[in-house]
């Protein structure tokens, strides 16, 4: 690991000033330290934001305000999250391990970096790690990589489970920076790779995430399903956060967000619209999958994700609509 300067943030404005000047924030450290050990990230200055507090979960406007430093374990186990946002609790519990969830924070989880093997291998070309160097994943071993939102410069998948559930829940991110405080729809926090895969978020210099805001709980049933290479403690090949309402055998509301297959936590409103008014049954799932996957761009090894996602939609809808067949 390269040597760095270490500061404990004395307050939010201190953290803002230091990041605006190029420092890197550290929260739980479970992603950043891993990347620093491998010298994929080599910050000169680390600012520890744990002294900021922001570790509370509070009811706000019928929803919840989740502090940026709330640990993933605490969020998953919170009684109101378990009761009102089960999709979020399950998504969190499907991620990483008991040990990691005790350290990982809400903001750190949102901003964790991709697990693309070529991003991790400093001997490979990777436009995210070394802008302009190329992308060895395009024709490489890319079965973990994304099929939606990708570009010819990058096919890295966003690895977070938590963010997928939060996108399905229409969460917003509260940020504070030199230009003041603002809220961003979580979906808009992430940039698509296009020709600058190294630019991953829409945060302005000096902006610090202070909280995630969950709107009031949606109607309908919620689920989080994750498919991976082993039964536990593995990143998603494909996952879905689903929230669906049914009335008289017809789907009246649907939110579907996907993990493991997108350059960012993926949601497609047209695919959701394709479910509305449909009778409960496999045709509904087919309609949504057709719309969602029409945009898929596969690169060999990861082509199976298209069929896998289609089946995942079927399974999620069976569970959410109570249809047993």
């Amino acid at each position, binding site marked *: 690991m390269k040597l760095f300067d*270490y500061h404990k943030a004395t307050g939010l404005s201190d953290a803002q000033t230091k990041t605006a000047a190029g420092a890197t924030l550290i929260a739980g450290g479970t992603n950043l330290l891993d990347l620093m050990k491998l010298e994929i990230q080599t910050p000169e200055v680390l600012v520890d934001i744990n002294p900021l507090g922001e570790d509370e979960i509070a009811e706000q406007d019928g929803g919840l305000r989740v502090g940026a430093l709330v640990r993933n374990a605490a969020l998953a186990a919170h009684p109101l999250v378990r009761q009102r946002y*089960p999709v979020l609790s*399950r998504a969190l*519990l499907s991620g990483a*391990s*008991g040990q990691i969830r005790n350290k990982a924070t809400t903001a750190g989880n949102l901003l964790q970096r991709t697990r693309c093997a070529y991003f991790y291998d400093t001997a490979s070309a990777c436009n995210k790690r070394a802008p302009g160097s190329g992308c060895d994943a395009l024709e490489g071993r890319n079965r973990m990589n994304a099929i939606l939102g990708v570009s010819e410069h990058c096919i890295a998948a966003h690895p977070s489970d938590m963010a997928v559930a939060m996108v399905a829940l229409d969460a917003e991110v509260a940020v504070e920076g030199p230009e003041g405080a603002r809220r961003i729809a979580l979906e808009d926090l992430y940039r698509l790779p296009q020709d600058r895969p190294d630019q991953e978020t829409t945060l302005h210099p000096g902006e610090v995430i202070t909280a995630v805001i969950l709107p009031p709980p949606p109607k309908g049933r919620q689920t989080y399903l994750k498919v991976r290479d082993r*039964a536990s403690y593995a990143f998603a090949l494909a996952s879905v956060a689903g929230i669906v309402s049914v009335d008289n055998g017809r789907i009246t509301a649907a939110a579907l967000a996907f993990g493991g297959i997108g350059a960012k936590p993926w949601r497609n409103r047209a695919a959701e619209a394709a479910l509305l008014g449909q009778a409960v049954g496999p045709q509904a799932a087919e309609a949504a999958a057709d719309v969602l996957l029409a945009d898929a761009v596969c690169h060999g090894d990861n082509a199976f994700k298209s069929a896998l996602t289609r089946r995942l939609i079927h399974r999620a809808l069976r569970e959410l609509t109570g249809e047993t067949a």
Partner: protein
Amino acid sequence: MQISLNINGEDHKVDVDLRRSLLDVLRHDLALTGTKKGCDHGQCGACTILLDGRRINSCLSLAVMHDGATITTIEGIGTAEDLHPLQRAFVAQDGYQCGYCTPGQIMSALAMLTEAEEGWPSYISESLEAEPDLTDDEIAERMSGNLCRCSAYPRIRQSIAEARAQMRAAK
């Protein structure tokens, strides 16, 4: 930078390089070598310790970020004469083969049992709100952050289940 740590009830002052992990402080600076280094990247759980009562991977923790912390390691939960119920159960049930992962398994299990007592669900719990029923599958899921290269998993789960029963009976 100098930091203080309370480890297994004893106060320590240590001068650390900014890059030092808690794991390396324990093993190298304080010669507490019960805590193991498997992967050094959060992937195996061999380095599991309790930080303020919760299980964490000490390899993914910068020591300077934990100035003033209270830590429990495998050295702090029992003695050779008076083993912790988990230690006794691992011996009785053959909960290991080479033993390298064992300190991490035991520290992780200790915190996992507390989590379950507090009602924390797991990804596979049928209900997120009911009191957890620590079936074999539940133990496996909750312990998935601890790998065992020798694949002693069935006995590890059995050891944990036995220790839990004894710990509950002793209450």
